[in-house]
């Protein structure tokens, strides 16, 4: 196999021969499994979980292949390969997902072994991106760069990636299992809507440890993760998770797919009993076998050493001049650029949400451009966010204007990170076999309605999240405005919820009133925004804060007045 080396400075885990051998063996194993299916040795029922654990779904119109991007971090070389695959085997684009992965929606089954082979050339694969196993661990897209970071989540996400890879005990769980880690003061990883959400922090001595939240999740029974243990020391990090998974594997329900997630187990056992089971298992597991050796942690940490930052003044004259000269850039700077811990650097979010566009989609040309820009401006590395955008985490302030001009020329310069145009949408009925309604056209219509960047900025922080069915892949429960597609006698309707929150103050939104049609939905969103603008105490009061203060009544009245 031709191995293509990633850029040495990119903050990714760099494979060695053992890692490469493993992926090569898995690719070969899957090829044989496909043969055994074709020969009839494996039944369709037996093949299905195997196919899923290799990232291959059967969708409405075609196979979908989901590629793992561990904790959403990849090198420019890897992105270029994803682009090449999209061009050759798909329709010239790819779709970035809420699990910080990338999926291709138009794959031919017979092409998959070749695709997996090409991915392996750049140390990538599609393993465990589906199936009832531990999925790709997600983390803060600003990891290693954010000014408010306390612990580097990549290190522990990588340890978990390894530990959960082909875990012999936890590959046939009751249901899928999702873990997120945040190591900063602001939660940009939505940890409390995960099966296990980890907040990495430090004690008085500066030692890292973790708060464990368990049983969060959306879907048809949304729950906010509950605090099971306030402090788990680094050396017990793996043992504690092993204990949680063992309790879940034994006691999680297997009689009903809709009640099989760990959130239902925690809910049915009660937090106290669940915690007691975990603690008992943990007390016994604790010991040399499951102790996470500090040397291992250090070894992994070296993969994520800071890139060679230049010593720069924090203030950039070039940036100030550009800001003064170009208001569109100034707006993007205010909305899409975050503070970096290194002086003179900044974190830039590349919006994949152009007005009227499909959230999370990128053409192969756009991917190539971002790969080039990552090499030119951000040490050859980029991140995928759980809100389906991309991030260049280490950009010199001096370079921001050049970066933005290049992005803007490729329709990647939208200034809407965190604003109303930054919509999360699941693939919906356009692709998905489970969906009741389409999500994408509605997302397009809403973002077109609010296309004006200045209007978006005036409205301020307001996340819209759209799911095409109750499985909630579009996270509608935690949208400040959530939209759920439902089917009413063959017609698509949309139920609106308000007040959801994916950050540490996690909240599940409340249903505002009866479902509305697609056309009505866009007007209803605009009406909600108008009511908010008319009622907010001042510009700093966010939508969800106004909602808390004034309640649902004024919003309901406006939308449903005619009924």
């Amino acid at each position, binding site marked *: 196999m031709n191995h293509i080396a990633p850029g040495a400075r990119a903050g990714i885990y760099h494979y060695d021969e053992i*890692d490469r051998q493993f992926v090569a063996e898995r690719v070969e194993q899957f090829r*044989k499994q496909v043969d055994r299916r074709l020969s009839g040795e*494996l039944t369709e029922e*037996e093949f299905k979980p195997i196919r899923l654990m290799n990232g291959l779904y059967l969708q409405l119109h075609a196979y979908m292949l989901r590629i793992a991007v561990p904790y959403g971090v990849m090198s420019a070389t890897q992105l270029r390969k994803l682009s090449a695959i999209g061009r050759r085997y798909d329709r010239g684009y790819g779709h970035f997902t809420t699990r910080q992965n990338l999926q291709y929606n138009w794959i031919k089954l017979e092409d998959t072994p070749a695709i997996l082979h090409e991915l392996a050339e750049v140390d990538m694969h599609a393993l465990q991106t589906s199936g009832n196993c531990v999925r790709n661990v997600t983390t803060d897209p600003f990891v290693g760069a954010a000014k408010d970071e306390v612990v580097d989540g990549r290190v522990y996400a990588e340890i978990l990636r390894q530990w959960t890879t082909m875990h*012999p*005990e936890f590959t046939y769980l009751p249901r899928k299992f999702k873990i997120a880690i945040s190591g900063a003061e602001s939660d940009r990883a939505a940890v409390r809507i995960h099966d296990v959400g980890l907040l990495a922090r430090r004690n008085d001595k500066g030692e890292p440890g973790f708060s464990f939240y368990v049983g969060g999740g959306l879907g048809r029974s949304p729950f906010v993760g509950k605090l099971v243990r306030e402090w788990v020391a680094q050396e017990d990090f793996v043992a504690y998770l092993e204990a949680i998974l063992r309790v879940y594997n*034994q006691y999680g329900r297997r009689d009903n797919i809709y009640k099989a997630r760990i959130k239902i187990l925690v809910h049915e056992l009660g937090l106290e009993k669940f915690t007691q089971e975990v603690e008992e298992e943990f007390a016994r597991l604790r010991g040399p076998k499951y102790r996470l*050796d500090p040397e291992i942690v250090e070894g992994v940490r070296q993969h994520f050493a800071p890139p060679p930052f230049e010593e720069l003044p924090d203030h950039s004259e070039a940036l100030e001049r550009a800001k003064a000269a170009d208001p569109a850039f100034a707006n993007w700077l205010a909305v899409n650029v975050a503070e970096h811990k290194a002086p003179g650097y900044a974190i830039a979010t590349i919006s994949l949400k152009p007005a009227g566009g499909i959230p999370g989609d990128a053409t192969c040309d756009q991917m190539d451009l971002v790969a080039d820009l990552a090499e030119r401006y951000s040490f050859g590395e980029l991140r995928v966010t759980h809100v389906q955008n991309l991030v260049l985490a280490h950009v010199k302030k001096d370079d921001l204007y050049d970066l933005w001009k290049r992005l803007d020329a490729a329709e990647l310069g939208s200034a809407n990170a965190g604003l109303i145009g930054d919509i999360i949408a699941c693939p919906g009925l356009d692709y998905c076999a489970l969906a009741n309604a389409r999500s994408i056209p509605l997302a397009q219509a809403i973002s077109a309605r609010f296309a004006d960047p200045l209007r978006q900025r005036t409205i301020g922080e307001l996340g819209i999240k759209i799911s095409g069915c109750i499985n909630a892949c579009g996270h509608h429960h935690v949208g400040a405005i959530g939209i759920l597609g439902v089917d009413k006698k063959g017609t698509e309707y949309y139920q609106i919820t308000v007040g959801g929150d994916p950050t540490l103050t996690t909240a599940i939104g409340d249903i505002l009133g009866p479902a509305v049609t697609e056309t009505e939905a866009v007007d209803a969103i605009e009406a909600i925004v108008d009511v908010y603008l008319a009622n907010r105490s001042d510009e700093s009061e966010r939508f969800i804060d106004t909602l808390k203060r004034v309640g649902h009544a004024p919003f309901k009245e406006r939308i449903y007045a005619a009924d």
Partner: protein
Amino acid sequence: MPLIENGRIGEDAWSFIPDGEPVPNDRPVIISFERWQAERDSFDGRNAKLGVRLKSGTLAGAIAADLDRFALVAVEFAKFRDGRGFSTARELRERYGYTGEIRAVGHVIPDQYLYLVRTGFSSVEAPEGTNPDSWANALTEVTIAFQPSLDDTAPLSLLRRKLKVG
């Protein structure tokens, strides 16, 4: 049914006696956990080896106190997708220190064989007509593991290691 041991089809010295049928005293037999619970006194003084078969919903703790009575524990997989048995075996070994044979019975596929071995199983009862090559291959096709398991005792200080093949 073919018995798979160490990647090969082996001799099965054991037979399962369905509930209600008489239990022979002169050869190794496996009885159901339910029968054990109902008739345990009748096995006092038995000299031939005894094994017990656990349904997938019967977890290791249920049999823990009686493990010294059994030379074999058969763990049933109602469906291959029901992975409780992996934890049952591991609990039997790690938590309750069981050193006898642990056998996977029911619906198990070769693609799970490596996982079974790594969680403490000694043997698998495979369906009639199974392809022996698939079982043999299952132990050698992936040679790298990322976590400690029952077939090796080294601590986690090596996250990645090569498995002993064969």
